[in-house]
């Protein structure tokens, strides 16, 4: 306890020097938390967006369906059983029929994937209510990326050609009744959404679906005749990317922490050099050398405690502000899910881990110079003669 009291008194007594050290250390603190918070925020938002726009809480695929192989779409669809209808009715699942087609915007030819979705579904954020426009015979909704690549605008009509279940060609004009903006490229690139019933009628696949997208509160992991694909399976690519991003941050945080620790180290070396008489006095008063080492180590480590307080003082308002306002990244089309605005997420675990990391490392760098004390000759020290 004595060590703590002494440490506090000594540190506060040193004034500006202490506060500079503490300032830098608190910086390290705040930046580490900020960076990880940013990545966690991206991760959470990415998962949330992907779930809301594309995958739900999990999916059931018709056996043989493969989301990355459009050629499987032709055959991978099946009738929706009564059991499944029950789930759909309870808003626990929504059926999606997926097939291929070709559009001809201004005489150009572009392969597309057609997705039939229920206009009244609530599981995906797609603006399916736009299907209700009575003026549009075959209403379609597309994402902004698709709109850009096909050069289509809201209200445009474009010729769509597809094959029905027997391979017979069919073609008609569809009307773009809405263009949505989402951060999930796989829910947008090359896709055209049509009302489920329309696509079923167009392809002669009445009452059929390729996949079922499950709602948030879904508990079901097995359905007769369907293959369950969990959220983790569907999010695999994204999670790996986030993992790799975190790796890049480690170096950054490590270097920053090194800077702060360098300051503590420097301070410790100097205090031990300057305060030889004090050290000698402690020993003369009956303290063991290791007790004195303890006093100095605690004093150095105390920087980190003060740093967490200081960091909290300006970090909390800063984080709060960033969390309210978010950080805008623009909308890069780099093929990965990244929100235009990321709201950093700070978990308790992150804050506690960071604090432990900073405190432990500060203690270690305080201890290293302090070890020298244990080798000091007390009489020399009292006279201030140790070099």
């Amino acid at each position, binding site marked *: 306890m004595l060590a703590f009291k002494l440490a506090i008194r000594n540190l506060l007594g040193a004034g*500006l*020097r202490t506060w*500079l*050290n503490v*300032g*830098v250390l608190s*910086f*390290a603190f705040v*930046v580490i938390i900020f960076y990880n918070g940013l990545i966690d925020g991206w991760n959470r938002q990415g998962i949330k967006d992907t779930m809301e726009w594309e995958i739900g809480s999990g999916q059931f695929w018709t056996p043989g369906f493969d989301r*990355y*192989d459009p*050629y499987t779409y032709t055959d991978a669809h099946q009738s929706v059983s009564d059991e499944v209808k029950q789930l759909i009715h309870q808003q626990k699942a929504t059926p999606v029929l997926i097939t291929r087609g070709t559009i001809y915007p201004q005489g*150009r*030819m*572009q*392969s597309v994937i057609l997705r039939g979705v229920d206009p009244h579904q609530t599981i995906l954020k797609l603006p399916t209510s736009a299907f209700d426009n009575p003026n549009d015979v075959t209403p379609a909704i597309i994402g902004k990326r698709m709109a850009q*690549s096909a050069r289509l605008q809201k209200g445009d009509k474009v010729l769509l050609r597809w094959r029905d279940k027997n391979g017979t060609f069919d073609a008609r004009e569809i009307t773009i009744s809405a263009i949505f903006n989402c951060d999930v490229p796989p829910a947008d690139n*090359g896709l055209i959404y049509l009302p489920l019933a329309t696509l079923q009628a167009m392809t002669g696949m009445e009452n059929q679906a390729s996949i079922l997208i499950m709602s948030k509160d879904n508990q079901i992991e097995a359905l007769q005749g369907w293959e369950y694909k969990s959220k983790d399976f569907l999010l*695999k*690519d994204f999670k*790996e*990317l986030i*993992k*790799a*991003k*975190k*790796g*890049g*941050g*480690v*170096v*950054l945080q490590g*270097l*920053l922490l*090194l*800077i*702060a620790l*360098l*300051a503590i180290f*420097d*301070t410790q*070396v*100097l205090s031990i*050099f*300057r305060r030889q008489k004090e050290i000698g006095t402690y020993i003369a008063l009956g303290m063991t050398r290791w007790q004195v080492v303890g006093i100095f180590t605690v004093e150095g480590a105390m920087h980190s405690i003060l740093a967490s307080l200081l960091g909290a003082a300006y970090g909390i308002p800063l984080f709060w502000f960033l969390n309210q306002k978010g950080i*805008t*990244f*623009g*909308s*890069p*089309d*780099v*093929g990965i899910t990244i929100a235009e605005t990321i709201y950093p997420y700070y978990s308790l675990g992150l804050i506690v881990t960071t604090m432990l990391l900073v405190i432990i490392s500060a203690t270690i760098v305080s201890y290293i110079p302090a070890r020298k004390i244990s080798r000091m000759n007390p009489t020399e020290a009292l*006279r*201030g003669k140790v070099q």
Partner: protein
Amino acid sequence: MIQFIFKGIIRDRSRSTLPIIVVSIGVFLTVLLSGWMKGIFTDMIDMNANFSTGHVKIITRAYAENESQIPNDLALLGTDTLVPLLQKQFPQAEWVERIQFGGLLDVPDKNGETRAQGPAFGKGIDFSSPESKEASRLNIQHSLVQGTLPTKRGEAIITDDFAKRFNVKPGDKVTVFGSTMDGSMAFKTFIVSGTVRFGSTLLDRGAIIIDLADARDMLDMDNAASEVLGYLKTGQYNDEEANAIRDSFNTKYSNPSDEFSPVAQTLRQQNSLGQYLDMAENMSAIMTFIFVFAMSIVLWNSGLLAGLRRYTEYGIRLALGENKGHIYKTMIYEAILIGIIGTIIGSIIGLAATYYLQEVGLDFSSMTKNVTMMLPPVYKAKITPELFYIGFFPGLIATVLGNALAGFAIYKRKTARLFRELEV
């Protein structure tokens, strides 16, 4: 006097070693961190540049219209004159040709008949020229799961997922069936030299990377390329330079009324990367500022410490009758010299380390288990011009400032009390 102080610093180790070490380490960390920041904030940009957009990309106008379809019938022709022309006109960039194609990857059985097949995306890049940086640009070496890079014509890299799915091993044969630039059937059998992982399930399902010359041969694209990509020799994207190349090229060689005339686009113009680029630049500027600021505080502090460390010495010098102003001045000069020496040493080490990390990078694949991928697996730092002077802010200015502040203490000292203080 400077010479005198310099000699003092050199000869009196206790006066110089620790401060110079501290300044050097500080500057080293600042430089490395700034380079690292630049590197990781722009990795997504670099990945795009390396993989698809280049810093400047030249394609035909018609190809640009339908880029998502990989329309090789609209590819650039006459690249044997175009590329040397680009090299001559725009020597600030390295120009490379690439061919993209789609097709069927067909695995033969022992009778040469189809055993398995799947759709694939293909890329023809320059593996064979000794000066080609393409393989490292696509980070193929690091993404290899099995086997090696192609060492001769007729070898190919395929994705590991495809290889596993169809039980193909390095040394086995695969045939690409696609269509030539003219639409004829294209066939070519390759020996698999190795397998890679991209880290994108879509690409990993089926992709093949072959030598540009093989791609030309297979797709009947003599003298033609899907695209010519320009990479600035500085290694990093620079808007001004890229715009200059684009504008100059488009004015001279692009004809808006001819859909087959080439047109240049900068990285910023493609895939809506512009905004991300701005963001990455702002973000790394902010972070760099934070680090420089933090480092300045550290060095300021160490300047203060240096002043305090020599409290006794100054006391004796005052007692000997040295003018306070003179002591202060020598102290500042010393700080400047230490700052400069430390900054130079720190910058050199920092730049060397940054260069190392730029060329080799840090491979996190061991840390992030099962994440070996072509996209962003290895983190690389980046040497930018500002790294050459950025160390001076903390190294010199902060050190001097710290010393200057500590030096004020000299003026507070009373000659009458000096001997009491100096009593030992």
